[in-house]
């Protein structure tokens, strides 16, 4: 349920946990603010149906912790914070992502140049 019919929607679906961790490394945010931040970064609109199962999985795994913060006159908001374990996982996966991304770039460059096998 990552919106959009373009292929990047399915790429984001596969990497949503990493993207959410990276956004939460910037600041503690509630769910909808995570959606807005991802959209600002040009990653498309993530639907709640895709986001909250990922946040739930990360919470169960101890990568994020959640706290209800009282709103100004309105209902409270559940705010997520990256835990030290989540930060360590983010650092590890960011390194792996760079390797993966570089390998993908090489593959696509080789294909474009016509120098591949």
């Amino acid at each position, binding site marked *: *349920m990552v919106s959009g019919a373009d292929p990047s929607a399915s790429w984001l679906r596969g990497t949503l946990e990493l993207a959410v961790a990276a956004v939460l490394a910037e600041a503690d945010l*509630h*769910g*909808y603010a995570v*959606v807005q931040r991802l959209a600002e970064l040009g990653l498309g609109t993530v*639907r*709640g*149906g895709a986001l*909250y*199962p*990922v946040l*739930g*999985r990360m*919470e*169960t795994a101890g990568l994020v912790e959640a706290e*209800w913060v009282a709103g100004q006159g309105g*209902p409270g*908001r*559940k705010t997520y914070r990256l835990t030290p374990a989540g930060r360590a996982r983010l650092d590890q996966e960011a390194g792996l992502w760079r390797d993966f991304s570089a390998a993908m770039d090489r593959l696509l460059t080789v294909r474009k140049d016509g120098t591949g096998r």
Partner: protein
Amino acid sequence: MTTTLWSDRARWELALLGVDAALADEVLAEVREHCADSGERPEQAFGEPADFAAGIAADRMPLADRANRDRSGTTVFEAWSAVMASAALVTILAGAALWLWNGLLVPLTPAGLAGIPILYAALLCLLYAVVVARPLGKPRTVVPAGIATAVLVVLAACAFVLLPREAVASMPAPVLLAAGVLLAWWAFARRSTTRVIAGVEGAGEWLVELRGLLEGRHDVARDRADDLVRETAQHLRACGRPPREEFGPVDEYAVTLAHQHPAAPVWWRRETTRRWLLVGLAAGFVASAVFGGQPTWYVVIAVALLIGSGWLLARGLRGA
């Protein structure tokens, strides 16, 4: 564990989770192929059969199908079938017992005519509370159904005690047996229908349904379910879109969300409770065999059942 034994156990676990035979054949063929190519044993490559089956159900069963099942793989249709089958069994046993004790014709008394249907209604209420309410996504109806059961039992007791017990008519006992058989046939022969809840559109109704499904069908702890629904409501207010557009069909969202959180089943839905119950029944069987002066072969069967159920319980407690 041999590949064959592992495959048999995995097939059993897959069937319990509602994975159809074609998909089970396909994934078990993949397991055999992998093990033949790699030289690994199945538990090395794929883990315990139960974990393997859970992974297959999560990854390869259609979401709409998974959404219709609780964590043990039971659908609402199957839960209702279990209720009907239980009612059928009680009817058949009652018919057979009355035939044995009273002969072909069973005397009908005002006490019995009032008390037995009330007792039967109490049984149905109890079965609804224990078997159906939670898979149906209506966990809040368990307590009212339990209270209704207690009230009906009291009413039935009053009917048996207070109403006349002189026969006013008689009925052939096989009628009850036939009714039980008919009910059993209906329980097993009726065709599966899926309750249509995917069409729930209004935010309030959608959130109520989500809460019931999380706690009831998918055994998410009550506080956690409340928390998740509150967060979902907050998101809906912030984004201003209808729930179905933002989260999809409520039953599909419920299963996706619930499986990211630990299961917290109520005591009567825990596997260990069922195994304790089995041990209790087997112990009762042994006691009745020993103290009832039954023949040796009967006692041996009862003791074997007790040992078997005890072994199952020990396995369950070790794995818990």
